């Protein structure tokens, strides 16, 4: 059912997204005003500023937006699938698997794209291991999957610690940045962007079924949803979204856990609104966080994963407090 508050929320998020792109384009070591950004975007004579925009700022902003949107949507799905409000994109150990692979690549002296590819492959490997282990007979239950994932995460965590403690100092520095999530070298790439669009369309198609599924598997089956097929599809979509996100920017925390909750508290429970809202808010939130990351203590850049928590925690707590006051009234 379309309600006015849904429309208002979506329009506000669209506006926020546009503003976030402008903030993201204008912040960096060479600071540009909003007006300058807009005039430089369309300037007929290519100058240094335009070059900075097109070659550095815009690709990085897009990478931030794509990663944030992926993590937030993946979080929405995981929370419904596991019917657990504490679920996030990394809960099944995808981040652990990708981290082990990425850190190994760093240890072996690879850089750039090789680290991304290693992270992606590691994430896929982690997904296969979890699904393989959690399978009992023909189907798996949410609890079994969750337990397997949490235990696998602990295992990956141990390997990560081994890698960190046995590596040389200079590679440990890159490893820590990767683990906290960092967008300084990131490019979204065609493959990731295309997958984001496909996943978004797929999730919108199943959005009403997701509403039914969030009331429980049995209820969904009784209302004509093909539950096992839908669950498998959603697990795959969520896992690949997460794998793409970590391959772009490392394991950025907080976005996938908190953006869905923020939006639910703001009244977007219907997945037909929650999914596009998560797409927009996840993307803009990460762009803003990244703008802070590169300006707060410039010229030193902070890993964006630190900033997501520093901004996100107070914002989330304010919304939580506000909404619980409203419920009590």
């Amino acid at each position: 059912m379309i309600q006015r508050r849904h429309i208002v929320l979506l329009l506000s998020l669209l506006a926020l997204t546009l503003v976030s792109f402008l903030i993201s384009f204008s912040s960096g070591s060479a600071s540009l005003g909003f007006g300058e950004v807009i005039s430089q975007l369309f300037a007929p004579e290519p100058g240094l500023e335009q070059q900075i925009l097109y070659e550095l700022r815009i690709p990085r902003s897009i990478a931030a937006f794509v990663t944030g949107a992926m993590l937030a949507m993946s979080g929405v799905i995981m929370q419904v699938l596991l019917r657990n409000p504490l679920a996030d994109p990394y809960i099944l150990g995808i981040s652990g698997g990708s981290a082990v692979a990425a850190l190994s690549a760093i240890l072996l002296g690879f850089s750039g794209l090789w680290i991304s590819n290693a992270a992606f492959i590691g994430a896929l490997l982690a997904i296969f291991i979890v699904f393989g282990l959690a399978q009992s007979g023909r189907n798996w239950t949410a609890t079994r999957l969750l337990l397997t994932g949490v235990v696998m995460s602990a295992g990956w965590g141990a390997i990560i610690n081994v890698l960190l403690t046995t590596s040389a100092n200079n590679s440990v520095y890159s490893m820590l940045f990767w683990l906290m999530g960092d967008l300084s070298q990131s490019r979204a790439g065609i493959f990731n962007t295309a997958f984001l669009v496909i996943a978004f369309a797929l999730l919108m198609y199943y959005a009403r079924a997701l509403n039914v599924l969030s009331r429980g598997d049995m209820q969904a089956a009784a209302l004509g949803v093909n539950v096992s097929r839908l669950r498998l599809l959603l697990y795959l979509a969520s896992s690949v979204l997460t794998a793409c996100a970590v391959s772009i920017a490392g394991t950025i925390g907080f976005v996938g856990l908190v953006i869905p909750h923020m939006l639910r508290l703001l009244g977007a429970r219907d997945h037909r609104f929650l999914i596009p809202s998560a797409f927009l808010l996840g993307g803009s939130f990460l762009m803003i966080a990244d703008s802070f990351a590169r300006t707060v203590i410039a010229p030193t850049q902070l890993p964006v994963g630190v900033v997501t928590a520093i901004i996100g925690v107070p914002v989330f707590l304010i919304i939580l407090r506000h909404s619980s006051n409203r419920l009590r009234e």
Partner: protein
Amino acid sequence: MSNDLGKTAPLLETQSLSLSIAGRKICTELSLRVPAGQCLGILGQNGTGKTTLLHTLMNLRSPDSGDIILGDKPLKTWDPKSLAQQLGILFQNTHDIMPATVLETALIGRHPHLADWQWETKTDLALAQQALEEVGIAELANREIASLSGGERQRLAIATLLTQEPRLFLLDEPGNHLDIAFALRSLQLLRAHIERRQCALIMATHDINLAARYCEQILLLYGEGKFALGRCADVLTAQNLSRAYDCEIREFEIEKGRSVFFPA
């Protein structure tokens, strides 16, 4: 109450249905017919398989052998969406973890009636609001489900089922969490609904007197695959019930043709 069992075409029929769970038999060679406009009550001790039988009739699990026929074709051959337009179930327990309002929850019942990409229309909304009104929680429409009492949740589940508009209602312990008055009222409501729309109802319950009051037919499960099936007055006897519940149950006639049952 009519005596036309088996004369009109049944809405649901089972033919030699055998069912077991974890090696325990629930029913063997069960053949029942539920005609339109009628109620069937399923009674039996805890763990005799009332819920499992309901879930089987809902196509949520498969029987060991035998056939279930819904309308004019076997249950297995219905596609899930059309099936959900025919069959609706009230589950014994609802677990609500994800937040939603009362109205949003009731509207979930329209899912099988909507096409891909289609949004709920004004008609769907009106149906949900009417259902909430019928169960007496219309004023809670915008409340969070997390803030509801157990009884209000049960009423909401009944309203969701009414919004679904199935032809066959399957109820698992409809009286759960409801006070005596509301348990009666909701059964009256459903009873009137199925008579008006020529739907049918099957309910599993512990409340012998509720079943005696509203059902034409009773299926009494004895355990180990044995059962008694027939018209209410024939099956609900002190002797049968005492056997089923392994506890002495007495019959008291409170007015002509109407008895109540209590443990001795």
